[in-house]
């Protein structure tokens, strides 16, 4: 039976161009390019599925030693697409059934075969090349899962979604605490302020920083250098790093699954929230949201029957 594909016919058809894949077999470097520049490369569900599929394909391609993630246009990636309808249900429905959103959240993040773990558990060396915005899921599901990060000095990196989505995944991620240290992880999660590439280097996330115009060359040089490592030796190093990461419990993105399943289930009326937010701001959208039909604020204290 074929794997369930999520998304609309249009979004599934668009994904191949929105996630481009190139392999330089001479150097052993593969490149995955997020190509949705008009949306700062926000990832739709089919885009993430395509990345997962590509990582699976790469796993069994002996010519590929290093995988580089990059973004076309002004930014690396602004995170997950939040104005997307792909079969979600309304909130009151999803609380009674295991909806497509939860199943998808499980497939993508909780499951060991999901999106972020397809990157973090890859047997290849992974590099994220960051410029412009690297926000939300792009930060904690791609950049933080890659082995090395090369960034433009003025890149804007962080859990910016925590400003409006609620859960500050960056605070609770074991992985991010290991990468940044606990104080810095809390600062990024509880303030949602972006780190520059330079600051991210000083905190330990980024391996090398350069100017935006030199970023492709610096990344390519690093990728080719790593790909030139003898295959057996590279695989030995990657295997022992993956094993040690497992021992340190850094590969279980539980909070990522929680976060993803939380906000990827936006129903049509929830999508009105974002439309309203664009017009009157998040505060106004919150007020409007309370008035929508069937809305129930789970934080409200229910009147107890006498």
């Amino acid at each position: 039976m074929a794997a369930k594909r999520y998304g609309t016919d249009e979004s599934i058809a668009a994904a191949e161009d929105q996630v481009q894949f190139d392999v330089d077999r001479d150097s052993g470097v593969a490149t995955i390019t997020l190509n949705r520049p008009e949306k700062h490369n926000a990832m739709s569900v089919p885009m993430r599925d395509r990345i997962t599929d590509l990582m699976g394909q790469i796993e069994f391609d002996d010519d590929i030693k290093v995988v580089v993630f990059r973004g076309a246009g002004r930014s690396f990636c602004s995170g997950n697409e939040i104005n997307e309808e792909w079969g979600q249900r309304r909130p009151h429905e999803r609380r009674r059934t295991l909806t497509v959103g939860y199943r998808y959240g499980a497939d993508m993040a909780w499951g060991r075969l999901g999106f972020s773990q397809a990157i973090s558990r890859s047997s290849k060396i992974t590099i994220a090349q960051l410029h412009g915005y690297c926000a939300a899921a792009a930060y904690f599901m791609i950049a933080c899962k890659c082995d090395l990060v090369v960034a433009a000095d003025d890149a804007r990196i962080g859990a910016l979604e925590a400003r409006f989505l609620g859960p500050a995944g960056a605070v609770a991620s074991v992985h991010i605490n290991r990468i940044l240290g606990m104080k810095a992880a809390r600062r990024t999660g509880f303030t949602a302020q972006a780190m520059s590439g330079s600051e991210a280097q000083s905190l330990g996330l980024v391996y090398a920083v350069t100017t935006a115009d030199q970023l492709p060359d610096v990344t390519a040089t690093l990728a080719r250098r790593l790909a030139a490592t003898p295959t057996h030796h590279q695989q030995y190093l990657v295997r022992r790093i993956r094993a040690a990461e497992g021992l340190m419990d850094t590969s279980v993105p539980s909070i990522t699954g929680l976060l993803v399943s939380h906000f990827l289930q936006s129903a049509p009326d929830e999508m009105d929230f974002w439309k309203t937010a664009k017009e009157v701001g998040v505060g106004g959208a919150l007020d409007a949201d309370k008035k929508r039909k069937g809305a129930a604020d789970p934080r409200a204290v229910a009147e107890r029957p006498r």
Partner: protein
Amino acid sequence: MNTSLAVGVGTIEVDDFSPLSRYDHDFAHDLRDAVLELNDHDDVKVVLLRATGPDFAPPGAAGDQDRPSGLPAWRRDFAGSAAIYQTLCFSKKVVVTEVQGRCTGAGTVLVLCSDLTVAGEDSTFGSPFAAIPEANFALASLTMRLNRAKAWALTDDVLPAEQAHAIGLVNFLEPVDQVWSRTASLAQDVCRMPLDGITMSKMLLQAVLDGHGVGREFDMAPHYARDLWGGK
């Protein structure tokens, strides 16, 4: 190998520690025994590892032995729970490494297993992970943070002293002619602590290290060794 004792500090001096990188079993055995003796000496609060030569642990020459004579002996003298690295890492006393010049291979493993490190401004630090399967990646990750440790292992970059200091691998960075005095000063600071406090703190630290996967990572060494040496 020379061991001396003065005012709470047990100092183990060698020309350099590179014999460990060459899997010199006698050297590893003697070093382990020297540490064990100081661990149980009531007058010792600090165990200091010092190289008297220009380099703490220089890289080997071409043709040097780069693997042990056999896995059982390797476990006994290098990778096992009673071997040199775990004896240092889980020592009852505060272990200080004093690094000058080049520090590569097993020398860097000693630095990772020690509590405190004083380094000269001329020092450099090579990743131990390419050639030393018993090197503990969890310790590196805890010391310098995860991504830096990964990059160090994958790129095989040699870290200059200033960078090693900036990322937390080195506690104190000193001009070469002041390294000994800084080490002495640091050791005396530790020696002002009560002995039972030091030992209890080290016991507590063991639980923290194990909670972070350090012990399990040591236990993985035979798997890494088979992977590294078995596939060549």
